[in-house]
């Protein structure tokens, strides 16, 4: 199915995206006392833990470390959980897929969207952080929607691939756990790019998620103009990627009902 037709169909089923996103958010905190506050508490706890380890114990020399960590960690968590939850999403909704027709993309789309909504909630933490560190808000914040859009397209296209492949190769879910851990430490999130030995810096620069995270860090932590050029290049790549991964997804989705 062409991408235009597919978009039309997803638009027709937009209500389903809405309900599935909501139910995913609701299920995550179902029955918990603090409910949606976990979307803030979870990253907050991680922030405090990492800053204890890297700033207090290992004495990494980055001032306002908590703010630095925040600007990288929040988009990272969103990326990581999007990939991991969508990886199991098609298999997890197997019952529905076997019984009802609907555009299968919707499952992946809702699972990515629910993670982005979580990120938006976690971004509220920025208010107390800026207050504590007495950092003013700057005009570059207006550019954040750009990076969020690119991040969304990037995450969605990867999620479509992994969700479809997981149906046929179930090990992928476990493999991704390890890959994500590796990617976390090879992406400048807990340390800065300029701490990487120069010899291998080029290797780090091609990491798309690092480009996205650098953008957040530039705006929130460094108060400087982010690199629009590299984001533009990345966005072109991401759109091409989305096109290809959609092709693969809609091809593989024909066999979902038989294999889930």
């Amino acid at each position, binding site marked *: 199915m062409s991408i235009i037709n597919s978009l039309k169909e997803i638009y*027709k*089923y*937009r*209500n*389903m995206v*809405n*309900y599935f996103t909501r*139910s995913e958010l*609701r*299920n995550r905190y*179902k029955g918990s006392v603090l409910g949606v506050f976990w979307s803030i508490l979870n990253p907050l706890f991680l922030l405090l833990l990492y800053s204890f380890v890297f700033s207090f114990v290992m004495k990494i020399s980055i001032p306002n470390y908590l703010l630095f960590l925040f600007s990288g960690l929040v988009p990272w968590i969103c990326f990581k959980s999007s990939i991991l939850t969508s990886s199991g999403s098609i298999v997890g909704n197997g*019952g*529905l*897929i*076997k*019984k*009802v*027709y*609907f555009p299968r993309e919707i499952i992946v789309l809702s699972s990515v969207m629910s993670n982005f909504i979580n990120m938006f909630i976690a971004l509220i933490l920025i208010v107390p952080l800026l207050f504590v560190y007495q950092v003013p808000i700057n005009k570059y914040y207006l550019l954040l929607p750009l990076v969020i859009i690119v991040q969304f397209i990037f995450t969605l296209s990867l999620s479509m691939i992994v969700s479809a492949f997981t149906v*046929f*190769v*179930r090990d992928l879910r476990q493999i991704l756990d390890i890959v994500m851990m590796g990617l976390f430490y090879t992406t400048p999130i807990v340390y800065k790019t300029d701490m990487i030995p120069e010899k291998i810096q080029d290797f780090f620069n091609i990491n798309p998620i690092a480009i996205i995270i650098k953008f957040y860090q530039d705006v929130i932590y460094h108060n400087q103009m982010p690199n629009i050029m590299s984001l533009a290049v990345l966005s072109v790549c991401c759109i091409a990627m989305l096109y290809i991964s959609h092709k693969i997804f809609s091809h593989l989705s*024909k*066999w979902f*009902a*038989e294999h889930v």
Partner: protein
Amino acid sequence: MEAIRVEALSKKFVLNNRPKMLKDWILMNDRQKKKEFWALKNININIHKGESVGIIGRNGSGKSTLLKIISKILYPTLGSIETFGNVSSLLELGAGFKQDFTGRENVYLNASILGMNKQEVDKKFQSILEFSEIEEFIDQPVRTYSSGMYMRLAYSVAVSSNPDILLIDEILSVGDSKFKKKCIDKIMELKSIGTTILLVSHSDSMVQRVCDRLIWLDKGEMVMDGISEDVMAKYSEKMI
């Protein structure tokens, strides 16, 4: 005008397709022979708009597979299938229900899975509620429903979508006889306004009441396709 066109359709399932595990790769273990099973063999059907067609046959004759292919849940191995118009399928009622959502939320959710938008459901909500006879329980989570209530609600949503083509698979074992009658009446009503109906059932009386034409499948092959009385007569003869 055509509603459903099935051309040279065949569907193959690979049985025993246990995923290859690492040990099979290492041992180059190809011994686990892949058994093939043709659930449908070279089926050709043309259904016109407004026709109501029943598919009969014994268990494992491929009836449900055919319906699943028409509703695009499964894809054909060979041949092609085309549908013209909105398809709504009552293959499995309540498949999309979320246990923790209330009846009301599930109506909206389930309708969205059938491709309806919010305004449409708003308009139909009252009639869905009346049809289902759920009444004040509509704002309770569906996990508290009895299985009868559950099915009634699911059924009410499914028939409310006013499809051009309605696919039904053995679901009319729903509820008590009063509700069953209501369901058949609803199907007859949809039929009278020109909905194309394709029905799979074991219940002869149901098929004979609703369908003008019957298709008889056996072991994935079409045995007969014709007017209800003729096919039913041959079919019952064979079954005895």
